[in-house]
């Protein structure tokens, strides 16, 4: 009966309740959508960063990032491996030897990015094997290459053709080698897709005359969220011979974008909720003011103030619950739709994304914590608003209320 009473009290003023509920619905929907976008953008970016190439954390020889040349390579020795493997958060690492070379097929020669890598570990970090569109993935001892399809097109080369790589090897010697193309890759970044050639690490070290040397160690982390303590721990344990960088340092534009976006989202939703909160408070104010006599009567006949207060709190919470529930229900299809059909963006940000080879799209994240946190936030806000009627009842003088 109390629930019936609460429910019917809500609909005393249909229009007002509907407007209030609708405003909560709108706010919840909007914030869920915004946060899903934001989280989606972030997740997408992380996926890009890790999946496409760089990984979360890399180790180079000091100074490599500023001057990315082969001569800035370093030896992968046991002490280094041991120290890295000691780190709790490190599952494994991908050793890479990266340099610019020339790639030649028939009469065409193009500059390309040569990546010598460990086939098995590369698979773990970037799922390179999944990017093969023709041919097969390579193994550790292969002396053959995987090339990006864009580059293949530029060279007019096909699967099973033989590619000639030549350029400068370690310490200025000449590098030259012939390799069979055993696989074509599709890389999402146009830049990478037009220039990347992958060779097994061993073969690349032979080609570049740099036995047991690498330019980059890309770490595979157990928990990417804990990358900051890992970076600082590595910095204290490895000598200054090495530089340790996380993806945010390697790609500052993207990281700044996420931070700025995050802050503006919180400000925006705070303002939105503030407005909605005041609107709702107005409703609650009216709901209590216009029923003063009824409250006086109820207290007179024997309803305890606290119980009356709880009934009113129940009304407040129910309006919120309706608003939140419909906000969530309405936003689910929207979020799912925008996840399947992500929004494309243009302008400065798009350029920054494309520079790193990321698709300039924002898919929404489908994440229950977004829904739960928004619902939780609105509920807490309502609890505060719901305290007003309780306080109002607490100081209500039944006699005066009845006398009006």
């Amino acid at each position, binding site marked *: 009966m109390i629930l019936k009473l609460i429910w019917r009290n809500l609909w005393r003023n249909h229009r007002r309740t509907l407007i209030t509920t609708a405003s909560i619905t709108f706010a919840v929907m909007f914030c869920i959508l915004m946060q899903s976008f934001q989280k989606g953008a972030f997740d997408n970016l992380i996926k890009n960063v890790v999946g496409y190439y760089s990984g979360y954390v890399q180790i180079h020889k000091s100074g490599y990032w500023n001057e990315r040349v082969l001569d800035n390579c370093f030896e992968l020795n046991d002490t280094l491996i041991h120290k890295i493997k000691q780190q709790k958060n490190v599952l494994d690492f991908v050793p890479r030897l990266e340099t610019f070379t020339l790639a030649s097929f028939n009469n065409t020669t193009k500059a390309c990015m040569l990546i010598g890598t460990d086939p098995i570990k590369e698979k773990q970090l970037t799922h390179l094997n999944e990017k093969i569109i023709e041919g097969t993935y390579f193994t550790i001892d292969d002396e053959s290459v995987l090339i990006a399809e864009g580059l293949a097109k530029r060279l007019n080369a096909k699967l099973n053709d033989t590619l000639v790589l030549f350029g400068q090897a370690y310490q200025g010697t000449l590098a030259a080698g012939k390799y069979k193309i055993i696989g074509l890759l599709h890389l999402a970044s146009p830049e990478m897709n037009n220039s990347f050639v992958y060779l097994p690490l061993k073969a690349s070290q032979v080609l570049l005359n740099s036995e047991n040397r690498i330019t980059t160690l890309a770490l595979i982390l157990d928990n990417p969220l804990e990358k900051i303590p890992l970076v600082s721990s590595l910095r204290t344990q490895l000598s200054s011979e090495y530089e340790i960088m996380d993806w945010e340092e390697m790609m500052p534009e993207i990281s700044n974008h996420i931070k700025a976006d995050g802050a503006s989202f919180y400000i925006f939703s705070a303002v939105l909720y503030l407005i909605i909160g005041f609107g709702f408070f107005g409703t609650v104010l009216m709901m209590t003011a216009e029923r003063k006599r009824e409250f006086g009567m109820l207290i007179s006949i024997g309803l305890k*103030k606290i119980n009356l207060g709880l009934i009113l709190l129940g009304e407040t919470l129910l309006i919120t619950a309706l608003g939140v529930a419909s906000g969530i229900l309405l936003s689910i299809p929207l979020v799912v739709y925008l996840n399947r059909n992500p929004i494309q963006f243009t302008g400065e940000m798009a350029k920054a994304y494309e520079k790193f080879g990321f698709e300039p799209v924002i898919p929404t994240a489908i994440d229950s914590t977004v829904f739960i946190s928004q619902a939780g936030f609105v509920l807490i806000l309502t609890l505060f608003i719901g305290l007003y009627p309780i306080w109002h009842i607490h100081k209500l003088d039944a006699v005066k209320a009845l006398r009006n």
Partner: protein
Amino acid sequence: MKQAVIDAHNLSKIYDEDSIPVVALDHAQLHLNRGEFTAIKGPSGSGKTTLLNMIGGLDHPSSGYVEINGTNITKLHGNALIDFRLNNIGFVFQSYNLIPVLTAKENIEFIMLLQKIPAKQREMRVLELLKQVGLENKGDKRPGELSGGQQQRIAVARALASKPQFILADEPTANLDSVSATNLLDMMLKLNEEENMTFVFSTHDQRVISRARRVITLEDGKIVEDTAPAKITNGINLLE
């Protein structure tokens, strides 16, 4: 001597909110027995509501005290007082008696719900009460769908539902036309006679006063007359 249901000793109430003190009730002595049917009359502002509020435990006197069935309710406060009202006193107000979103039945049931009476018992009693106030076919109507007189009857039924020591009614007929007013009074009188329910009500309507067994007259917060029924009845007869 019969046990008094209401015993008010030297009740005074002084309102001094606006710096000029108003003596709303001035050393009132009142002794009401079980089964009495008492009207409190007096011009507007004479202190009727103030007196009823004191004996109903809605407000505290400035001095003096009120005993209900031997309990000094002037010493009760907060929830204890609210609980006392719930279980001992039935209230009927001039208006806004009922919860507008509940049906007549639910309004009557509500007070028993507060008393934590089991659902089965509540339902039975609601039907019985509706019959007693002559509205057995209006149980599912909301207050807005009932006439003023019917609403007051439901209010009386609601007051009876809690099985109180007595029922206080502050100008229960003030908003009613004369036919509804006399009907309501006749119904209350019937309940008084058949159930021995004690009623105290305030009014300034002569027709209502004529139904009272005892009439207490207030003037400027003082009880100036406390008459036996015969006299009044005679008076009315003389007037007619």
